[in-house]
């Protein structure tokens, strides 16, 4: 049941303003350079990934260090089904569900042997799983060339939707839309969908079961939750989001290789979830946006700043980036261990009304 909240006019105005800002955003960004639109698109992909991982880590409390494997599965499914590599060119709305389903299958494959593990033990197994998938991608070029090994797959088809190609610029309503701008709107639609799915799952029978397992697995079993099934569902759901994000990544980049699916990426996504606030989707989104943009901002400010101060580059931007990233995580864990925007104490207003009568 949806909580009944009386919305003030201000609420709707606020929503409308945010929507307008998000619609106008790519135009503003293009003014600063198309690169910023691309950066934003990658940030949205990371938001999608974080929301997927949040189901496993935030809701069900299962620490997963190999999440990038599902991203890789989705990306390779898209790449293999829409590139000259196999000569297949399926439309993206067919590939995306296939990628999601295959990633979900891999999620179950990872989940099944790890059902009895928790915490650090689970983390190690999932870490190994992520590496296995990456190594497979790297080596499945012999004896039959499936993944094309470390060279990766190139010339991947951009998304085509209703005769509109996302690879080139177009003019609609007298405005020029570049390829990345079109992807931005597509990703935003996808993101809205994923947020809606997440919110609905959270306030559902399954979502409560996930939380119950996170809180006390033994008690959850005692009240009749089939923890095996519910955990596998969490792995599968989380993985399927990763698969969708991977498919979009392939289409946007038009080239992928195993290098994009390394452990550091898993750690990055996990950091986004933890930094933002596990379990709260708005916190997770904030964490993903922050960790996607701050490094890019640094890239554009660190060198000019040093040039101005010392007339030469003393520290490489990449070094500063990791330094600040590490420092931020340490400070976070020290001062806000629950995340920037942690799961608030949920007040179910309807429950209160009913209970007081």
């Amino acid at each position: 049941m949806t909580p009944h909240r009386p919305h003030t006019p201000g609420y709707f105005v606020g929503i409308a303003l945010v929507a307008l800002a998000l619609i106008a955003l790519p135009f503003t960004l293009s003014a600063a350079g198309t690169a910023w639109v691309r950066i934003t698109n990658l940030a949205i992909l990371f938001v999608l990934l974080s929301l997927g991982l949040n189901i496993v880590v935030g809701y069900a409390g299962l620490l997963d260090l190999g999440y990038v494997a599902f991203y890789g599965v989705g990306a390779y499914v898209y790449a293999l089904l829409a590139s000259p590599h196999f000569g297949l060119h399926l439309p993206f709305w067919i590939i995306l569900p296939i990628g999601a389903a295959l990633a979900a299958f891999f999620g179950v494959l990872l989940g099944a042997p790890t059902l009895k593990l928790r915490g650090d033990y689970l983390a190690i197994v999932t870490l190994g799983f992520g590496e296995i998938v990456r190594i497979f991608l790297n080596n499945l070029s012999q004896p039959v060339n499936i993944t094309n090994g470390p060279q990766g797959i190139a010339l991947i088809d951009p998304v085509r939707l209703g005769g509109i190609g996302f690879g080139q610029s177009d003019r609609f309503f007298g405005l020029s839309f570049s390829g990345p701008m079109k992807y931005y709107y597509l990703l935003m639609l996808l993101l809205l969908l994923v947020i809606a799915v997440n919110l609905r799952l959270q306030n559902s029978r399954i979502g409560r079961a996930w939380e119950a397992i996170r809180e006390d697995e033994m008690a959850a079993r005692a009240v009749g939750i089939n923890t095996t099934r519910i955990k596998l569902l969490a792995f599968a759901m989380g993985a399927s989001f990763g698969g969708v994000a991977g498919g979009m990544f392939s289409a946007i980049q038009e080239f992928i290789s195993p290098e994009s699916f390394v452990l550091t990426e898993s750690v990055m996504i996990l950091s986004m979830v933890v930094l933002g606030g596990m379990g709260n989707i708005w916190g997770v989104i904030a964490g993903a946006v922050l960790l996607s943009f701050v490094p890019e901002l640094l890239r554009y400010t660190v060198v000019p700043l040093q040039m101005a101060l010392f007339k030469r580059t003393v520290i490489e931007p990449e070094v500063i980036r990791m330094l600040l990233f590490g420092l931020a995580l340490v400070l976070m864990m020290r001062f806000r261990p629950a995340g920037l925007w942690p799961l608030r104490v949920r007040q179910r207003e309807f429950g209160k009304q009913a209970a007081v009568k």
Partner: protein
Amino acid sequence: MKPVLLEARSVCKHFGGVRALHEVSLTIRQGEIYGLIGPNGAGKTTLFNVLTGLYSASSGAFQFAGAPLAISAPHLVAQAGIARTFQNIRLFANMTALENVMVGRHVRTHAGIIGAVLRGAATRAEEAAIQQRAVELLHYVGIADRANDLARNLPYGDQRRLEIARALATDPKLLALDEPVAGMNATETAALRVLIEGLRADGLTILLIEHDVKLVMGLCDRVAVLDYGEKIAEDVPEKVQRNPQVIEAYLGA
């Protein structure tokens, strides 16, 4: 005589060389409060854990509500209609009281992922019913005013009540309470006793493990006594109290 609800036949549980339970047989009848007492380490909680599927029995069998009860997993036991509480309270600490009880409805409801995402009329109706029943149960155990508080913020006595409400949410035929008044003061104990008597009046069968002999003797219809993993007595409280073996087990010879 009332029909038998649960029958345990020659249940054994061994941990390595330790005989935690040896050939324990008991019969619980519909609508009664059945007490299970015994000195520390007698095997009471082990029997509970075997019955609710947390441990698997080394040998023996259970018959529940007229059918053999195959205890292969805890959630199947809950499904069959046996709910339990824990000696050391095990709530979902970071969920509200209401949510805790709503989780208890899990086993009697059906909505899956697709239902949750599409949220059609059937799912919404089920959610509403889950919530309504949860609120009713909070009223029933007397903590409805704490519905939106996190379980971990409830006072101790209310946590016990919440755990009972959560167990009741699974629509049990048999409610197994593991030391429900442990750690409670006299007032809280008396209040919980009223609640348990109310449950019996409403037709629920209750299996009660308790250290508080006065409570057990006053509340239970029949009592079984375990000592070193074996049942040494099973009868109405007055007779059990006069049983020399029981007196010996409790007071030492």
